[in-house]
């Protein structure tokens, strides 16, 4: 690989690497190990987690924080919500991204349209939180509705809806999922659009000449070719969704049935380190299988090329 002529001292590479390696050791490797250790300790991090065991109640000894993380009712709710986030927002973002990538390919204002869909990527979760809280806002005091959604509903003669503090947790969660789809569809669209443009034009032309409808051209030709990219995008989105925090923190703070693991973890950081860290380990444990699938897929894709 490295040309012979480029002589170097034995120490030289390490001088180039030193800063990066030290910083990564201190800021990624050390804390990861430390987190795993703390997850086996009690709330102050000084004693084994087993001290919190109450006689007569189920306890996993030193792994009691994991017992909490997997069985506590709030945590079960958070796990359920994380699962629903994955099941609903991943198809949502990838689907919207794909639809938009396919459709904008056929219009002349493609660049402008794509920029607008993509723009939320530049906005912070906090900014997006403000934007959407305003969309969902409910004027409860009897004044006129100043949030777009409730204004539309009342203009059509309906009753305004509490989008984020509804008695039904499904409504509250759906409101959050919509924000997520708004934020991330642009990301999916950009990558899928690049993949679509890589589909050989002759192939599409040949199919159209043979009388295939656009519907068939998409499902029989384009879709199979970009399927590997779709998988990569989908797995990336799964990992992003698993770690979802800011949106929930800003919009509902996990109230009214919208709790997720990362927000739960944040709430416990000060009050109970052991539990908080067990949740962090749980998060990474959930991420690893998806990463492995992703790497495998990528290797296959490389081989096919």
């Amino acid at each position, binding site marked *: *690989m*490295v*040309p012979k002529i*480029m002589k170097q001292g*034995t120490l*030289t*590479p390490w001088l*180039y690497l030193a800063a*990066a*390696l030290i*910083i*990564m050791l*201190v*800021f*990624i490797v*050390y*804390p*990861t190990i*430390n*987190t795993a250790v703390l997850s086996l300790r009690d709330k102050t991090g000084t004693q084994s987690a087993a001290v919190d065991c109450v006689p007569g109640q189920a306890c996993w000894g030193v792994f009691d924080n994991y017992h909490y993380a997997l069985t506590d009712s709030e945590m079960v709710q958070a796990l359920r919500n994380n699962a629903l986030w994955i099941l609903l927002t991943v198809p949502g973002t990838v689907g*919207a991204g794909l639809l*938009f990538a396919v*459709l904008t390919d*056929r219009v002349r204002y493609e660049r402008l*349209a794509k*920029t*607008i*869909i993509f*723009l*939320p*990527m*530049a*906005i*912070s979760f*906090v*900014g997006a939180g403000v*934007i959407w809280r*305003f969309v969902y*806002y409910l004027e409860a005091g009897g*004044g*006129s509705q*100043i949030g*777009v959604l409730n204004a539309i509903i009342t203009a059509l003669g309906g009753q305004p809806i509490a989008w984020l503090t509804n008695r039904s947790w499904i409504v509250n969660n759906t409101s959050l999922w919509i924000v997520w789809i708004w934020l991330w569809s642009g990301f999916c669209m*950009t990558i899928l659009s690049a993949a679509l443009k890589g589909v050989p034009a002759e192939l599409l032309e040949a199919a159209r000449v043979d009388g295939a409808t656009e519907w068939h051209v998409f499902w029989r030709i384009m879709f199979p070719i970009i399927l590997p*990219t779709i998988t*990569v995008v989908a797995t990336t989105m799964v*990992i992003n969704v698993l770690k979802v925090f*800011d949106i929930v923190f*800003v919009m509902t703070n996990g109230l009214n049935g919208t709790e997720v693991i990362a927000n739960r973890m*944040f709430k416990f*950081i000060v009050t109970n*380190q052991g539990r908080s*860290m067990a949740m*962090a*380990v749980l*998060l*990474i444990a959930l*991420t690893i299988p998806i*990463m492995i699938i992703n*790497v495998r897929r990528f290797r296959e894709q490389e081989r096919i090329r």
Partner: protein
Amino acid sequence: MNTERIKRILGRIPVHVIVISMVVIWLVPTLGVFVTSFRSRQAVRTSGWWTVLSKPSPLGQQEYGTACASCHGAGGKAMATADLSDPEVVAEYMKTNRLLPLLRQGVNGQPMVQDPEWQALVQDTSRTKEALDALSPVSQYLGTLSGSGQAVEYGLTASNWLDALVGYKGTATYQKDCAPGVSESGKFKCNASDLLNPEGMARAFLNSLLVTIPATLLPILFAALAAYAFAWLDFRGRMWMFALLVGLQIVPLQMTLVPIAQLYSKLGLQSSFIGIWLFHTGFGLPYAIYLLRNFLGGLPRDLFESIYLDGANHWTAFWKLALPLSVPAIASLGIFQFLWVWNDLLVAIILLPGNPVLTYQITNLIDPRGGNWHLLTAAAFLSMIVPMLVFLAFQRYFVRGLLAGAVKG
């Protein structure tokens, strides 16, 4: 025009409809915040931002019209004995709990309110609360008629932005409290030093810049050095170290915050800028090294051989050849890291609580009852301007970086 062509154009209409409606749906939420940031507090609270171009009728005009206009006249001047455009007459009745007894009492045995529905409501003592609520817009309109009440300011104004910048949270505006000639108002000095108020967005903006610029440059510099070593230097463990590094990308940030916060409090680095720079650097490095190594490794070998034949060493090869050639990759990285750090909330809350950045300051402004949308929207937009400009200016590089990173392991 032949029918074939018309058919084709018609067939494309659904595509346009879907694309345009999606664009509109994506744009409307942000547009609402942008428009609202230029409206006065009362205007925001009483009417939707989409009415900004229409001229709204003053609050209570309609209610006054049905309840009172038949005797007092639309302008309130029809009765000389009770001229409602006279501030002194009206001053008493601008409170609903004064107005209601008067209406119940009537004049010379005749009911004061002509409209039968209103009359029934006013007379029914079991519905007092409802009557008071219904009268509130009327008494407000009486104030508007007489000129003594506060009229809603519907014009567009930049005062919310100023209020957000200096951190003004009072009931008027910073501009009114600091009218010319006033040299001090509460905690404000009414000069440029107010921009440094720790509760203001101007100060937070400065903090965000102070965090983001070094936290963008440092990882790029360190990553470029390391990537050069991985691409063009020979050392033991090169392959497995690089593989390990790619694996580090999956560590979620949340996992590392607490141990680092504890480490910082031992070292006295809590709430210091150096601390947050180093943290963001650590987290940016794996991806940055990965991307830059792939880029540098893809450069032609001959280039490096020839500069070496000319007598250069690795140090000059790095600065004179590798770095200038990798500008496109560095640009993508820089934008990613910049947006990431600028938009971050979690790290800033935990590691830099003493110097609130923009995102943190916005969460402080959120009022669950919706009382300060005028401030919140301006503050949110202040925080969005820089990343949006960066994004629009360098979109090409951003997309390129995204495509390079999307297939990462």
